């Protein structure tokens, strides 16, 4: 594929230096099938070594490279330039997260509401006895959720009600409830609290933007149903 001209407008922010934030334009030559993350690497390596953005695995497993791409939260590593179909690509830091610099945000906020010990595994979907190798207790795989924060960025309730637990935490909480039935009552109590599931207004933006098919809105609906039974 031949290289084409691609224009990026990237929100730059350096506290006390580029403050308030402003857009800076970069023009690069790249393949149309290149990803936004590859383009960011190119800009960092050839234009500005100080361009801050988070990235790690480059295949949508770590969840670090989420940012606002043309106004919508998405992973830079799996968003292809060609699929955006705009002449200019706007990149901004993930909404509803404190910005550290440029596109790098602090995701500590929603992690603080998750108990760090909550499981990150689920049984494999096809874990029959015949498929379980000798010596392996149980076939396990990681959770779908890559903790990227896209759902938090998309949620209109989080923007207006910062204390709302938000879709990422509620989805993780509901998962934990399924995995550890003994923790059910306590977890449901948290979800039933004043900042919990009942704050959700069913915009469904969280499920629409989730890059990992977690569908947080379904988890929230689960919780709301069980909370109703409590009352």
């Amino acid at each position, binding site marked *: 594929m031949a290289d084409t001209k691609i224009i990026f407008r990237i929100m730059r922010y*350096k*506290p*006390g*230096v580029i403050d308030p934030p402003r857009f800076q334009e970069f023009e690069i030559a790249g393949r149309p099938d290149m*990803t936004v993350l*590859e383009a960011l690497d190119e800009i*960092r*390596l050839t234009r500005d*070594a*100080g*361009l*801050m*953005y*988070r*990235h*790690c*695995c*480059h*295949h*949508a*497993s*770590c*969840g*670090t490279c989420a940012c606002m791409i043309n106004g919508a939260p998405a992973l830079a*590593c*799996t968003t292809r330039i060609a699929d955006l179909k705009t002449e200019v690509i706007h990149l901004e830091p993930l909404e509803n997260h404190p910005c*550290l*610099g440029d596109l*790098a*945000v*602090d*995701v*500590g906020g929603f*992690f*603080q509401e*998750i108990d*760090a010990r909550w*499981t*990150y*595994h689920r049984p*494999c*979907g*096809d874990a029959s006895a*015949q498929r*379980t*190798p*000798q*010596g*392996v*207790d149980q*076939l*396990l*795989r*990681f*959770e*779908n959720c*890559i*903790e990227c924060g896209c759902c938090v960025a998309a949620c209109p309730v989080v923007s207006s009600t910062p204390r709302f637990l938000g879709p990422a935490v509620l989805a993780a909480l509901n998962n934990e409830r399924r995995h550890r039935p003994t923790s059910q009552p306590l977890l449901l109590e948290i979800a039933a609290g004043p900042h919990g599931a009942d704050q959700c207004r069913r915009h469904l933006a969280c499920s629409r933007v989730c890059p*990992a*098919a977690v569908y947080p809105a379904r988890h929230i609906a689960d919780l709301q149903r069980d909370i109703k039974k409590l009352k």
Partner: protein
Amino acid sequence: MERILIIGGGGTGAALAHDLILRGYGVTLVEKGSLLSGTTGRHHGLLHSGARYALHDLETARECYAENQILRRLAPQAIEPNDGLFVALNDQDLELRERFVEKCTLAGIPTRLLSSAQALMLEPTLHPDLKGAVQVPDASMDAWRLPLHFFAAAQAGGARILPFHQVQALILKGRQVTGARVRDFRSRRANTLAADLVVNAAGPWAGQIAELAGVKAPVRPGPGVMLAVSGRLTNMVINRLQPAGQGDILVPQRNLTVIGTTVWLADDPDRVALPGEHVQRLRTLGARLVPAVAEAPLHAAWCASRPLFSSDGQRDPLRISRGFACIDHQRRDGLEGFVSVVGGKATTLRAMAQEAADMICAKTGRAFACRTAETPLPPYREFLQAHGMPR
């Protein structure tokens, strides 16, 4: 206590920061970009049992197995513990099986022979004509969350972890490295970080860091391509029962299957374009093991530079040792206060840190034993909870 400055926020730096904190040192770690973004995080995610190295590098094989067992215990949240298969696709592969099992046994790696029917029972998507298989304790790991466990422990113990800080110069007093000039990309200011000892843990960038001190580090960037297709095609790691080659590893993870990998030698770890033909090559090779790979939608293709330890002039990138070395530049170049950690692989990050920390103890005249193999690690989320990055 001595202040140690670690350059490089990859897996080695993470494990070393934790190890040095446990031994009582003061630790600052600088990373020019995002943590784990250079090599470790882009790993295909195979937590080696060591079997891949059994035929040609027993020492690495033995070390991988020991570390595999330790990491399963220390960082269970970041491991899918489903074992792996080495699959013989033809008679030539099958002839290798006896020697492969012997070598694994020599390296201490447990194996179990499986008939083709048994293997297909475990993994029905394998090529139906396979001739047999061997089960080994491979696993899948999350290359972001596994090393984050070490960062969480180091941070809780008082280490300063500074991403987006690039080393611009090393400070020399005569023949002694006494710190570094570092650019903070957030404030755009240059700061001086003084240190009693500087550790170069920059992976494939270690050569560039060593040059700042006017010495050489024997490391060669060895980029490779990896491919992820949508769909979890197997539950176990799948390897081809052949001498280690290209496109012969399938690593399941979440809803994906990662296919690794190709390898070549480069001069600059940064300027690595992804060769398009490698993507098709990996898919073709992967489909020999699991035919469904051919039709699975492409999820992502990416590139990463390995830090190959190249001391012996070996030109074949597949045969350059995956071992590692800690280099005391005082002994090698007469430069005090500077140590380079080169080579190695994600599976052996803790062992590399142990050897580097042992060297630092010897150099600083302290006799603290390594405790990282037994000391439990906090959950990875604690690192992000404390604060994902310095405020």
